[in-house]
């Protein structure tokens, strides 16, 4: 059976694909950073909590307060890219989701348990005493499992030649475990979480340092160490990931295409520079450059997807419906800007309320 015959017919889109591509990249990047803060913050809290379960450090208590909120925001920011992904690649992603339906649907259950565990950990922090790391551990492990399910789906959707296995397993229990890129890819995301989680801790404490917090310097150092060592690991993992990519995809990044290759060179050099900034504890420079490099990595990831799907599909194949929706696109942008304005105002009010009390926002 020819895998190309299995690819469903795509639906028409209401405005040209470039718009969705733009929103996909933008919202995915934000989701990625937030997800990294969530998972990384969770792992770092767990690590610190396990080192001294009897007397958890103030950092652990601090992270425990923020953990549920990071889940709320990270999940919300996952909705938008998943929406735009379905507009452009739904006919691939729905298929891979059905093939692994049992695992895919289990994401919802795992998320609910992870989320409640995070709140339980925070609200019963003192009462749980030495059991607290177990509750946090459950949450972190579930969140990491969700990431693994996502890695499976995002790679399975790129490999229609593997889809034929459906005819022997129609119960939705497939995974993409034999794919050599799966584990390097997954670990690349998880290690990024340690880096970004560490950076977030450093950044938060840089702010507190200005407010005169005596403990801030030590925490900046700790956060930047997580960042730097994880980034060093990222460079190794990234290169492994590159080597296991299918040759037709890999060669594009190794001279086959100027655009692909330059982006990769830019990304790797940026990562090396980040190592330097990181070990020097230059928090702000690191943050700005990290933002840029994460954007480059998101673009590279997109190019990898395009290269995988090239034999079957390109987003430029998508047809624009006869009744276009430019007015709605505009309405969305207006609502987005207004909504963000209102949210910014609400956050400002919240921030002021906490500053008046001389406390830090939970």
């Amino acid at each position, binding site marked *: 059976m020819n895998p190309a015959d*299995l*690819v*469903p017919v795509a*639906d*028409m*889109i*209401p405005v040209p694909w470039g718009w*969705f591509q733009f*929103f996909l990249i933008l919202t995915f990047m934000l989701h990625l950073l937030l997800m990294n803060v969530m998972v990384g913050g969770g792992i770092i809290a767990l690590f610190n909590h396990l080192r001294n379960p009897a007397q958890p450090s103030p950092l652990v208590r601090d992270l425990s307060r923020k953990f549920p909120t990071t889940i*709320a*925001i990270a*999940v*919300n920011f996952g*909705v*938008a890219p998943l*929406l735009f992904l*379905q*507009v452009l690649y*739904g*006919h691939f992603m*729905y*298929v891979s*989701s*059905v*093939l692994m*339906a049992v695992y*895919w*649907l289990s994401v*919802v259950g795992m*998320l*609910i348990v992870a*989320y*409640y565990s995070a*709140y339980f950990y925070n609200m019963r922090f003192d009462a749980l005493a030495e059991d607290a790391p177990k509750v946090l551990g459950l949450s972190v492990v579930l969140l990491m499992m969700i990431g693994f399910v996502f890695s499976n789906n995002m790679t399975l959707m790129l490999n229609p030649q593997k889809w034929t296995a*459906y*005819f022997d397993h*129609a*119960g*939705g229990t497939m995974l993409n475990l034999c794919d050599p890129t799966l584990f390097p890819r997954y670990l690349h995301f998880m290690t990024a979480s340690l880096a970004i989680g560490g950076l977030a801790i450093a950044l938060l404490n840089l702010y507190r340092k200005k407010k005169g917090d005596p403990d801030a310097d030590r925490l900046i150092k700790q956060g930047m160490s997580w960042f730097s060592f994880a980034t060093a690991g990222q460079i190794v993992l990234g290169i492994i990931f590159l080597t296991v990519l299918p040759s037709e995809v890999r060669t594009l990044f190794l001279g086959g295409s100027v655009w692909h290759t330059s982006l990769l060179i830019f990304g790797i050099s940026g990562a090396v520079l980040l190592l330097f900034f990181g070990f020097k504890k230059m928090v702000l420079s690191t943050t700005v450059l990290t933002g840029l490099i994460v954007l480059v990595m998101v673009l590279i990831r997109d190019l990898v997807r395009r290269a995988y799907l090239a034999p079957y599909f390109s987003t430029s194949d998508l047809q624009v*419906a006869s*009744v276009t*929706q430019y007015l*709605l*696109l505009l309405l*969305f942008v207006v*609502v*987005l800007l207004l*909504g*963000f304005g*209102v*949210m910014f105002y*609400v*956050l400002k*009010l*919240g921030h002021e*309320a*906490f500053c*008046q009390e001389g406390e830090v*926002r*939970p």
Partner: protein
Amino acid sequence: MNYPGWELSFAGGGLLIAMIAIVHVYVSHFAIGGGLFLVLTEMKGHRENSAAILDYVKKHTKFFLLLTMVFGAMTGVGIWFTISLLNPGATSTLIHNFVFAWAIEWVFFLGEIVSLLVYYYTFGRMEKNKHLLVGWIYFIFAWLSLFAINGIICFMLTPGAWLETGNFWDGFFNPSFWPALFYRTFLALMLAGLYGFVTSTRIKDHELRESMVRYCALWLLAPFFFFLASANWYINVLPEHVREVIFVRSPEMVRYIKTFALVSPVIFFGGLVMAIGLPARVKKPLAYLLLLIGLVYMGSFEFIREGGRKPFVIYGHTYSNNVSPLKVEQIRETGILSSAKWVKNKVITDENRLEAGRELFNLTCLPCHSVGGPINDIVPLTAMFKERALEFKIKRLDKSPYMPPFAGTEQEGKALAAYIFQELQGNK
């Protein structure tokens, strides 16, 4: 015919979506009405200069946050995951036609999260008017979420002029949009009272408890007749053929309609009973009982609404089994197996007849029928038919008002009948 089907057997027939959607809807409506309840009750606390009421609102906010933001929001994502697994084709239609409505709803959802978290964490720390403003902002975002989602849900039942024009606005502001919006808004307000019982019956102080429980009863009872009036309006805007499917031609709808009709006065009198002076040990369990009855109430309504859409998943546009009504004749000529992408047996032979029958079953029946499960179980439904009778029945499937036509060839109908009779009924 475009996508693979998830072979669910026992859990098929919409069991998964029913399980997740009903609890989600029950909590998400609370997330809207409960938002208004929070600010108005906080205002009441300030007006009466009562620290005890403010303390109650704070505790209720925690309950509200943990229930709506975790369970409510995550099951909402869960519905999306579930429909894309059970009905990818229809999900894709909804996503591609309403992507900007979904995107706008995402902004509202984010606004809800941000304002609710700030509202919760700044309780007692923020200046009164600012805190109330944050509460109002939460409620407005939450209600706007309903506004956006309501358009898409109603579209599935009454797509109206969209079927001809393909215009977003025709689909969004479809014939049942406004009555459903009012219906759901009033329901959300009632649920605020119903959930309020759970927390207000736990107040230690007798006097305050009695007054807050009565206050919650008012939330439940005051919108009640507006709610029933909007339900009536909702029914009246439904096209004649939809009403006929719901009220006349679907025997299995009767139990949901009866439940809805029976529970209406029960909820109302339950609210009245809560308002009279009973000891806390009676009111506490009664609060949970009413909450459970409310779930049944809401569940029966959602079953009726979903049932009214039969045999379509998007009325007039896509049958429940993902076939477009416009393509039925064409598929009847070429055959399902050769039209569908995800089948192994493209041609029926004597050897593969049962195997092809299974594939036909998965494509055309499994979207609505389970095998041995609690919902729409195919086994008892076909038990009284012999193989030939099944063949005849399949050919004339659309004589039943809630079944889509069988779009296959005669040979495919026979293979399907053979599979049901021999494999599912076990008549080897």
